[in-house]
């Protein structure tokens, strides 16, 4: 089972904002940068946010991330129907040398 806890689902109307939380511990979120992935089932997951709050090229600024202590957050503003899907936080557990990556439990975003 995942060591990173996310809410199972969040929802909002088009144009509104949703916030997804990711709760970990001192051995993962607390000591490493957090990434966020967007996943539409049956397709390749897509990197949305890396290093807590950096957006790779091509990711709109409607997506933003932050981290405080052992928790991280993904905000999606200006919600669009195309944002409906699953979102996962992820980080390394322990030192980077451990090569042990962990994913959150996943959150389904629904646009009402």
């Amino acid at each position, binding site marked *: 089972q995942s060591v990173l806890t996310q809410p199972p689902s969040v929802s909002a109307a088009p144009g509104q904002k949703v916030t997804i939380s990711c709760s970990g511990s001192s051995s993962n979120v607390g000591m490493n940068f957090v990434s966020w992935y967007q996943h539409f089932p049956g397709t390749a997951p897509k990197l949305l946010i890396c290093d807590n709050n950096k957006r790779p090229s091509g990711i709109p600024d409607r997506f933003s991330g932050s981290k405080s202590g052992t928790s991280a957050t993904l905000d999606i503003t200006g919600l669009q129907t195309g944002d409906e899907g699953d979102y996962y936080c*992820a980080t390394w557990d322990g030192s980077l040398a451990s090569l042990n990556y962990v994913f959150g439990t996943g959150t389904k975003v629904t646009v009402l």
Partner: protein
Amino acid sequence: EVQVVQSGAEVRKPGESLKISCKTFGYRFSSYWIGWVRQKPGKGLEWIGIIYPGDSDTKYSPSFQGQVTISADRALTTAYLQWDTLQASDTAMYYCARRDYYDSSGHPVFDFWGQGTLVTVSS
């Protein structure tokens, strides 16, 4: 252009073996770790393990240690995930992805992903 292309869907019976592949293009294969991820039907993403093709250094999640084998062929720029004895519980979508640093001051992430390989194990 970096591309990661996985082999097609597979159907096997319990007890059979299987090896699925992850072919990469457009970058120096030996210099980047490749990770594997499982997604069971209706469930979330799970970390399986990772390999560095340069020297075949491999690390498994404790949950998958001894259950699967990750390997790589530098000449073919391809990584593999294999099972010696499949079980029905191995039915899932499997993804591979390249690990890289977005920023030299940051931590590595998985930036290019394969499209997934659906493995169905059923009698």
